[in-house]
């Protein structure tokens, strides 16, 4: 019998330069647990280096962590890649890193802090994680699928970095598994604005950059277990599974 799990699939950690330094994996997990969230996805800008540590912390609290990454395309469109296995996310990360020019400037963009379970600083990511990759939207979606991942168009209601703002409309032949409506826009308003894209499943999430942001919007996944493959089935609406937003 499918049951509903609450998911916040777009959370940044202190590895994202624009995120608050208090966004450590430990505190994110604690906050998600206190809010009764069952599934979170760690989606830092162009990196998945905080997925593993968050996953092991979350296990102890009974929260499921999906491996994710928010990739910035050459057109400056943000796309979430969600993966069932850490190795798949890291394979995607390798391609992203190969196609991500530039070095971070901490004074301008912020620190990119890598920490462990105990919030001890392990180092700083030197890459320009906030930057755009040389990969097109079409290529990124293809790559995510080649690593068995789910491709989600980030915050399509945001003018900057949203696919509709940047590219005018969702390109033909680009097969998103879901579209994310940001916390800013209600479902009713989103229906007025994006009714054209109702054939693609919609989710909403917090896009949290600070601890207070976590869970400000969540999506319900009605499914058998809190697994990645069940989420895929829920997005497709297979056998009683569904997505509630």
């Amino acid at each position, binding site marked *: 019998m499918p049951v509903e799990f609450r998911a916040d699939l777009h959370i940044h950690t202190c590895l994202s330069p624009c995120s608050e330094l208090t966004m450590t994996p430990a505190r994110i997990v604690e906050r998600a647990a206190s809010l009764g969230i069952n599934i979170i996805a760690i989606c830092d800008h162009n990196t998945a280096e905080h997925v593993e540590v968050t996953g092991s912390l979350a296990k102890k609290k009974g929260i499921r962590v999906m491996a994710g990454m928010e990739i910035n395309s050459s057109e400056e469109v943000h796309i979430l890649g969600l993966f069932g296995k850490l190795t798949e996310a890291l394979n995607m990360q390798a391609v992203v890193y190969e196609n991500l020019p530039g070095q971070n400037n901490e004074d301008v963009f912020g620190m990119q802090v890598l920490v462990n379970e105990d919030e001890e600083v392990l180092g700083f990511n030197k890459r320009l994680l906030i930057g755009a990759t040389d990969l097109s939207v079409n290529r990124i979606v293809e790559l995510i699928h080649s690593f068995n991942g789910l491709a989600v168009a980030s915050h399509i209601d945001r003018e900057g970095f949203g696919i509709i703002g*940047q*590219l*005018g*409309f969702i*390109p033909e032949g680009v097969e998103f598994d879901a579209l994310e409506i940001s916390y800013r826009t209600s479902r009713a308003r989103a229906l007025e604005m994006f009714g054209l894209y109702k054939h693609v499943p919609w989710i909403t999430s917090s896009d949290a950059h600070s601890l207070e942001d976590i869970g400000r919007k969540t999506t319900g996944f009605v499914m058998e277990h809190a697994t990645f493959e069940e989420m895929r089935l829920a997005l497709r609406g297979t056998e009683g599974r569904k997505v509630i937003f």
Partner: protein
Amino acid sequence: MELQEIIKSLSLKVENPSVDLNIEVKGAYVSDMLSDVIGNSKEGFLWITIQVHLNIIAVASLKNLSGIILVNGRVPAEDTLKKAIEEKVPIMTTPLPAFDLVGMLYSLGLRCR
């Protein structure tokens, strides 16, 4: 002003020379955000951008623009060029950055109105 004339005086490279370039250019618009171009460009305008995605051709067709100039040495993506030929949208390139190119277009008398 004729598109041909602009191409000559600014030494633009036409990426799809098979299309008809005897087109009247009525003005110009500069933007890299396609939603903005849909909202604010007008029929017969030239569009100056760095975006090379396939969607630029659809936007140019939708708005009946007179052509697209890709600046800063950008070249159209393969599928973009193919679509530009199909849809008969002139697509030009230049090594100049947008600022310089737009200055020259302005000197030639083009305006955004």
